[in-house]
């Protein structure tokens, strides 16, 4: 149907020069979805809840740094979270310590909230049906939602690293960083390693995001999807702590979560990074496929 055709089928909206006429949709070049992604990100980051989550994450390094600063004799080696005792020598370690502290619970919590909200949140608001009749396209929407969640993962880890670095430099000296191998590296390389660790942690969260995305397609109640995603992250770590289930460990989502120590050795070891990336890729493929199957066949009744 062409809008140039006269008669009853002429499109509305032509009284005002409102964009290009419809009906020629197939002949025009559809956009790839960059604008949808930009809009998705603006929805995520214009949301007060997102900023509350990021603020909570930023509070962790600040709390650690202030606590260490206020104690007189400083932390002892081998007690408390790894790197804690290095903080007094080098502010950069606030970021490392905070990442270690956040990985088991805080990061999965925030990622669970965002990933669990992807589809279920739209369904809960009722906006899902409007996005679909625009049409955003179900596959495209799913992809954009996943990429949005992944970018949130990155911003979450960077928030911790950034807050840690800022507060670390404010309260502690900036010195050389001691690697796990006992070698020391200068501030330039330390910053690089810190960013690598942030990248590692982000990759670690990608599988969980895919799980959250899938769970999110199962329900119209975002809180349920968030809770289920977080429960899976915690359960994975509980199973990982049980030696009786050692055969299952290589398959666990959280198996390599603390493996970023490999990036703090001399020379750097990429083994964990590779293994972790492969594992997370497997989770992304599996749960991405499940989410695709579910979301493209689902009746949107919200």
């Amino acid at each position, binding site marked *: 149907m062409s809008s140039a055709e006269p008669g009853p089928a002429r499109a509305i909206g032509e009284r005002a020069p409102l964009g290009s006429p419809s009906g020629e949709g197939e002949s025009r070049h559809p956009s790839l979805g960059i604008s949808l992604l930009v809009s998705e990100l603006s929805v995520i980051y214009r949301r007060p809840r997102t900023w509350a989550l990021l603020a909570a994450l930023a509070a962790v390094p600040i709390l650690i740094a202030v606590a260490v600063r206020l104690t007189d004799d400083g932390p002892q*080696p*081998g007690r408390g979270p*790894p*790197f804690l*005792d*290095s903080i007094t*020598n080098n502010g950069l370690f606030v970021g490392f310590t905070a990442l*270690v502290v956040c990985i088991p619970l805080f990061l999965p919590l925030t990622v669970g909230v965002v990933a669990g909200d992807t589809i279920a949140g739209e369904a809960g608001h009722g906006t899902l049906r409007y996005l679909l009749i625009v049409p955003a396209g179900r596959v495209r929407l799913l992809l954009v939602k996943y990429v949005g969640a992944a970018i949130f993962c990155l911003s979450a880890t960077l928030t911790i690293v950034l807050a840690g670095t800022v507060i670390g430099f404010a309260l502690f000296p900036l*010195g*050389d960083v*001691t690697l*796990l*191998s*006992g*070698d*020391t590296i200068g501030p330039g390389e330390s910053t690089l390693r810190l960013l690598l660790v942030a990248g590692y942690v982000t990759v670690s969260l990608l599988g969980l995001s895919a799980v959250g995305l899938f769970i999110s397609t199962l329900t119209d109640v975002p809180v349920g999807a968030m809770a289920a995603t977080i429960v899976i992250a915690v359960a994975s770590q509980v199973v990982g*702590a*049980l*030696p*009786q289930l*050692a055969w299952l460990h290589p398959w666990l989502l959280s198996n390599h979560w*603390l*493996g*970023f*120590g*490999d990036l*703090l*050795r*001399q*020379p750097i*070891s990429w*083994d964990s990074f590779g293994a972790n990336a492969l594992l997370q890729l*497997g989770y992304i*493929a*599996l749960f*991405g*496929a*499940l989410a*695709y*199957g579910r979301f*493209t*066949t689902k009746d949107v009744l919200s």
Partner: protein
Amino acid sequence: MVRSSLRWMPAVLVPLVIGTGVVVAGASPVVTLEEKTPEQVLALVAASDVRSFSGTIQQTSRLGLPEFPSTDSGSDSTTDSVASALELITGAHEARVFVDGPQRARVQITENLAERDVIRSGSEVWTYDSEAKEATHLTLPDKTAAHDSPAWTPGEIAARALAAVTPSTEVSLDPASRVAGRSTYELVLTPRTEDTLVGSVTIAVDSESGMPLAASVHARGESAPAFRVAFTAIDLAAPAARLFAFTPPAEATVKEESVPDAALPGTLDARDLRSAVPPFGVSGSDWSTVVELPSGSAPPELLASPLFASLATPVDGGKLLGSALLNVLVTDDGRVFAGAVPLNVLQDAAANR
């Protein structure tokens, strides 16, 4: 609807693909190598002149001992030390090894967010523990400084096993395999006696360099190795020189130690061992050797610890600490018999004394 069932196809295919990938990766690879006799492979090992490499070694044990969650619980130091000893011989451990000639080596025992290092450069030896932030410095006497390749590589273990090849052992070759991405000859040493827990020892020999890349010990009747040390990655190029130049970090506590000649790892031999421990007796030979310690040599607090009680099973004549490769019998009168032999051999040895 056909359409909607098609949409679930990826969800079916992905696990299939992953499963296939895992099975293919886990299957014993088909490697074709030039035919060799066991003797030729032994000669290849003997002629091996790999002096520099860097690699990752993985040690796995399935000794049939209970595993403990690696959280420190309680304050009983005996239990702690026993538990940490158990931890070392159970489960999996990984180390990165850098070797540059006989004089320079670095071993990193890697754990999650922790590492223990031993760095040797000539007569200088450093150890470093990242958790305790402790460094130890030793200077080796010249005599030991000349000592050759370190003891913890598959090469050393394989060399010892090969040295033990006697009429009591049958040497054969398994089909060629692949270790750390390199094709290997699989040398199999099988005890001819029934009086041992060892089913076989397999040594994977790099087909190009002759360097042993893996050694595994199978318990009798078990298909999975009870103990295995293997490279998971290896690079035969010389490691960067700066790896061997260790300066302890500023915040670490540094201990200076001088060590008597005999107590160095890698220099221990049977004579040192004899002088270091209480006098012990030996019975049997080769695979069925039984070592006997006299009454009182086992620390009484160890024998009294609840951990020992939970590990040991009462048997005729004492208590047995059993595992897949090693049995230890603590007799009621306090003597200790140990060996890679079945319980009845230990009991016979105890009865004959």
